[in-house]
Every structure is written in structure tokens, then in C-alpha cells.
């Protein structure tokens, strides 16, 4: 006693790939604290609008609060402008939302993923105080260090000095991306104790959204 900490780490991994005509977001469903599991049924993907989803690992109480803040802002936007916020606008909204807590940060590792108005995939990741990064593929959370090199190798083709990186959008079909991210989460669950139970994959195209679920290690 006497050492109250307002933070906890609830683990988990989230990832996303932006394609030419799709965006694919993945997360596991394990919520843990310390050495125990709080819930095996808590996926870390949160739909924000028809075009945009949010995925986040870290301190779950902050994640829930952040989501609530974003939902309010997006609802206000609809009332003000008569239309949903675009994915790019949500991505822009993240910086002030997170940076507003610069000196008592949300302990979160968020990803915003969605489609732009032409149906092209967009992905952005942030650090806990809001620095945005825009790549074709991103991964955040406890399995990040394990899976990042894998995606660099498979999508970024960062294998040798002479290889020309294959850009994700033209080279990678949605079908291939699904297999790749599924395998990435299988691998993360093998070696990261905070990742496991189920992997949820959400594929968004102009036609609609499809959700897939696969079993992961439960130990």
C-alpha cells in the first residue's frame, strides 16, 4: 500500500494493412492483468463509422475512455455537418485527443484504419501522446516486437540490400493479407504470453465489411 498506480497494462496485439481497395484490421481477444486473464472474449477492434475502425491495446480503462471521447466527437460532427467524419478526419482528430493528455497520458497503442472516399485503404498508428505514423502496414501492442520484423520481411520485402521493397497496395491482395495477418497472430501467440485466445480480422472494402475469427493458443 501507499504505492497506488493509476496505470495497468492489459496486453494484446493489434495490426492493420492498407491495400489499394481494402483495409484489413486484426486483433486478439485476450484481456489480461499481471499473470492472470481478465477475459478471453474482449476483441480490441471498435467500429467508429461505416468507413473507419479503431483498434487499440494498452491500458484498457484508457482505451474505453478514448473510445467514448472519439464517439462523442464523431457524433457532434454528424450533427454539425450532416455527414460522417471521413477516415482522414478521424486520423487528424487523434493527435489533439491524445496530446490533450500530454502530462497524464492515455497509456494506449492505437491504430486508426479505414477507407478514404475512393475506397482506398488508409492506416495510421499513434504513440500514447499522439504522434501519428502513416504506413501501409502497422502493428501495435505486446506482440509488436515479434510481428514487426515478420511484416517488414513479408510485405516490405526488407530481406536484402538489393531487394526493391514491394509496396503493399499493388502487390498484396486482400486474400493474401488475411492469411499473412492470421499467421502473424498465430506466431505472436506462440511467443508472447499476453496475446492469445482468438484473432479477429475485419476486412473493409467499398462493398462492405467482413469479420473473420480464428482460434489462437489459449495457454
Amino acid at each position, binding site marked *: 500500500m501507499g504505492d*497506488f498506480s*493509476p496505470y495497468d497494462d492489459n496486453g494484446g496485439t493489434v495490426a492493420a494493412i492498407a491495400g489499394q481497395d481494402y483495409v484489413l484490421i486484426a486483433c486478439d481477444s485476450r484481456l489480461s*492483468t499481471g499473470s492472470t486473464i481478465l*477475459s478471453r*472474449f474482449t476483441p480490441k477492434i471498435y467500429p467508429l463509422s461505416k468507413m473507419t475502425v479503431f483498434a487499440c491495446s494498452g491500458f484498457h*480503462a484508457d482505451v*474505453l*475512455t478514448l473510445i467514448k471521447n472519439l464517439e462523442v466527437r464523431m457524433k457532434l460532427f454528424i450533427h454539425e455537418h450532416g455527414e460522417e467524419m471521413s477516415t482522414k478526419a478521424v486520423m487528424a482528430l487523434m493527435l489533439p485527443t491524445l496530446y490533450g493528455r500530454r502530462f497524464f497520458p492515455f497509456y494506449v497503442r492505437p491504430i486508426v484504419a479505414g477507407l478514404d472516399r475512393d475506397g482506398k485503404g488508409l492506416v495510421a498508428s499513434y504513440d500514447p501522446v499522439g504522434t501519428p505514423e502513416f504506413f501501409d502496414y502497422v502493428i501495435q501492442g505486446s506482440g509488436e516486437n515479434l510481428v514487426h520484423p515478420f511484416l517488414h520481411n513479408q510485405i516490405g520485402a526488407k530481406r536484402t540490400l538489393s531487394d526493391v521493397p514491394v509496396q503493399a497496395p499493388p502487390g498484396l491482395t486482400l486474400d493474401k493479407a488475411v492469411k499473412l495477418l492470421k499467421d502473424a497472430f498465430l506466431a505472436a501467440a506462440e511467443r508472447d504470453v499476453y496475446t492469445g485466445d482468438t484473432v479477429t480480422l475485419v476486412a473493409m472494402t467499398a462493398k462492405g465489411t467482413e469479420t473473420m475469427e480464428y482460434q489462437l493458443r489459449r495457454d
Partner: protein
Amino acid sequence: MAHRYDINSALLRDLKVPLDGRTSSSHSATPKQHSQGPSVSGTAVIGVAFKDGIVLAADTVGSYGTLCKIRTVPRLLKVNKNTVLAMSGDYADFQFIEQHIGKQSIRDFNSDDGYEWSPKSLHSWLTRVLYNARSKIDPLWNSYVVGGYETETNRPYLGGLTMLGISYTSPYVATGFGRFIAQPFLADQVEKNPELDEKTARVAAIHALRLLYYRNRESSNKYQLAVVTKDNAVVEPVKEFETAWDTALMIRGYD
């Protein structure tokens, strides 16, 4: 341990506090200290979902450190006919929450618009209250299990909540030490039989408390159950469960 309570300065301060306020903004020579741990507290509570309802269970001890200060204290709160709340952690903080729930229930009744607490709305509201308290570094030292029947979806609802505001749902929930010893047992019961009936769920809940009693010095074998189904929520009277200590007779010495 909690800091020593200065009754004189507290009385003076209380004069300026709004009735529903918990903390004061009055100036004082020494900086205001927040509680750094629970005082009288309840240990683990558990919850299990069965196919058409929820069982919540808790023992009835109010501990003061390692002292069993109060032997019979209710830790299950019936909020309405759809919703029951099970508490663990600081009992004063729970009573503070209880007052707020009571007041809101009266307001809901008076407005007579058909709206009242549902398990989901109570869970969501409690999450905000605990999160806001932790964000002021003045936490409410409780974790909760919210159980009930969600009339909107027509399904049982079972959720957990920690003092930091981490909330989640699961077909089996336990707080505190229960996460270590009761949750593995409940998980096994639910996974073996996803369509639990009420009787099996009750037996499982009582056995989970028995496991806690065997291995947790704060627990006792006096307990309460709450069962929520579509029609009603019942918090049952205090009972005692059977225990067996015969394997203790097999132990001689320590090596």
C-alpha cells in the same frame, strides 16, 4: 494502511462540502491526502452466467487488515429486478456508490418514464465513476461484478470492473484472489458445459467460494447468493456451506 483520520479538521471541512461531494477543495495547512488502501474491505466475489440468467456469490466478511472485523455484512446489492451488483474492496467506498445508485433509482422512479438501471448501463456508469476517481489519483478502492438480465437483448449480462476502470464482460468473472483460484474452476465448468442450467451454476458458484475459503485467509464459509433471471432478481439470505478438512489429518510434521 490508510492515513490517520483527523476528525476535527474533517468536521470543519465537512461544513463546506456539498452534500453529494466526497472530497473537499478547502485549503488546509497540510496537503490533502487520499486513501492509499482499503480500510474495512470485502474479499473476492464471483459471477457465473447460465443459459437463462446469472448467479453472483460473495462471502460475508468485512476485514480490517487481517482482522475479521465484521462477520456478516452484505456484499450483494439488488439494484432492481434486472440488476445485481457484487462488491469487493473498501466497504465505505461501496456504501458511497450504493447511496448514488439509490438516489438515481429514486430519480428514475419519480420521472416515471419507464427507464431504470439495466446491468449494462450500471456497468458503464460505474466504469466512469471508478475511472474518474482513479484519474484524480483518489481511487474508489473497489472491484465489482455486475450481473443481470438485459431486457433489450433478452440475454443475461455479466461484467467485471476493476478499481482503475477496466471493464469487461465474460461468462465467468471473479475479482481479487478469486481471479487466481475461482476463475480457473468456473472457466472449466463453463467450457465443459456452455449451456449451464441454474442448479449447476449455483453449485459451481458455491464451490468457487469454498475454494476461496480453503486458500484465502480473508474468506469465510458464510455466504450469500444472488440469482437473476428474466423475471426477477433474488438476493438470498446468508447461509453456510459444508467444508471438508480430513486431508489435514494426513499431514504429520513439515518434512
